[in-house]
């Protein structure tokens, strides 16, 4: 069936024709709307549903088809109970360049980044990292031509349609506009990730 791609004996890669269905599909799968799903992994244009076993996949396929056919294509509105505030010192090494690329200037970039909430779309590449989307479209900038060898933990960046926070030092090509000391991962917290899928982030400018 279009939109349900095989991915081994116990998993299905769901690829809706309209990517705007992804948040609804991810929420539905995560809240147990399809029996037998033990893990849900969202990504940019797809979401993986892993089942408890091959037979659970067979049993769950009709419900999965039904979901794909009926989940509305709608970006969810921010849920106030799921907004986390992240304090940022906007002194990143690429802030001026982003100000130039966008035509907003440094102050304008800070204003745009903090004005509206960003949605946690999906994680990946490092524990605690999340791709944030849905922010001011004027902030879409390309990645740096040359990635940095070492981006510090807590660095706040922009790349394409996404914003993100590096949870640990790593190489990276995002445009760095600030830094935060927020604990992106706390093993004692539930869920351990601050930027868990389904949450929203409101950036707040603080003095460095």
């Amino acid at each position, binding site marked *: 069936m279009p939109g349900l791609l095989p991915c081994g004996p116990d998993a299905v890669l769901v690829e809706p024709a309209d990517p705007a269905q992804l948040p609804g599909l991810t929420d539905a799968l995560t809240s147990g709307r399809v029996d037998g799903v033990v*893990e849900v992994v969202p990504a940019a244009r797809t979401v993986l549903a892993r089942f408890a076993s091959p037979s659970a996949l067979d049993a769950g396929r009709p419900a999965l088809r039904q979901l794909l056919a009926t989940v509305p294509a709608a970006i969810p509105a921010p849920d106030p109970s799921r907004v986390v505030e992240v304090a940022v010192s906007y002194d990143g090494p690429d802030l001026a360049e982003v100000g130039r690329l966008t035509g907003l200037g440094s102050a304008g970039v800070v204003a745009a980044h903090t004005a509206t909430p960003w949605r946690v779309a999906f994680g990946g590449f490092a524990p605690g990292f999340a791709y944030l989307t849905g922010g001011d479209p004027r902030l879409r900038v390309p990645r740096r031509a040359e990635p940095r060898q070492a981006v510090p933990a807590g660095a706040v960046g922009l790349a394409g349609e996404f914003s993100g926070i590096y949870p640990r030092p790593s190489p990276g090509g995002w445009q760095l506009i600030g830094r935060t000391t927020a604990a992106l991962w706390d093993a004692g917290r539930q869920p351990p990730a601050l930027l868990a899928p389904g949450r929203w982030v409101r950036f707040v400018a603080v003095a460095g």
Partner: protein
Amino acid sequence: MTALEVLRPGPLALLQDAGRPGLAALGITASGAFDRAAFRAGAALLGNHPAGSDAAIEVTLGGLAVRAVGGPAQVALTGAPVPATVGGLAAPHGRAFALAEGDELSLGTPPRGVRSYLSVRGGLLAEPEFGSRSRDLLAHLGPPPLRAGDRLEIGPPPSWQPAADSVLPPDFPAVLDVLPGPRPDWLADPGALARGWEVSPQSNRVGVRLLGEPLRWAATRLGTELPSEPVVRGGIQVPPGGLPVLFGPDHPTTGGYPVVGVIADPDRLAQLRPGDQLTLRWA
């Protein structure tokens, strides 16, 4: 407190258990024992926790030597059969045996396969990370690779009795079945995957790389990018260069190159040695 002291680790020795599944949405891959069947067999021989939470040593190409200190230990060797001696006498493969306090268990090199598992009744203790004692070589999570001088404490006796007296060594099949994956249409000829390949030395727990005639992408896909999507253990990823990577337990959680198929029995990947000839077959 009874412990195993590592006298020499061999080429690579890692603590592994059932891994940390369920965290891929947070960027953490499942990891865990590469040959899960062999790891589970070791747990069954010793009456260890059936869910696989008792850690064992994943031994890569043999070479490990350990000594039981502070008391006796009940152990078992599974996975790739490897010459093993205790005090100069041959130790069995695939059945539990005892190490008396002070006994040294010494492994040679397996003639076939790659990974053997030294399991201990009660499991080996170390600080878990994200709920598992498995070493993830990609993300550097879990206890570091074993070194000479490491002391691994043995956990308390579990409440189960052994479920098996003996287990067979793993198969080393020359042909592996491939199940449908999400992106076979990215290849000009998906059928071309089903042929003979050679296992590359650039293979590890992240993935087994294959050498052979490169697989061409479909003309419409050349020069395009696939938005990063989740990938699974056993997934066969074909980068633009055309040489497949078969994902192991430490695979990245997402990838931007197409996964064209999925190995039906990914545990077999754990025993593929550089130079091995391997045929893939669409199931």
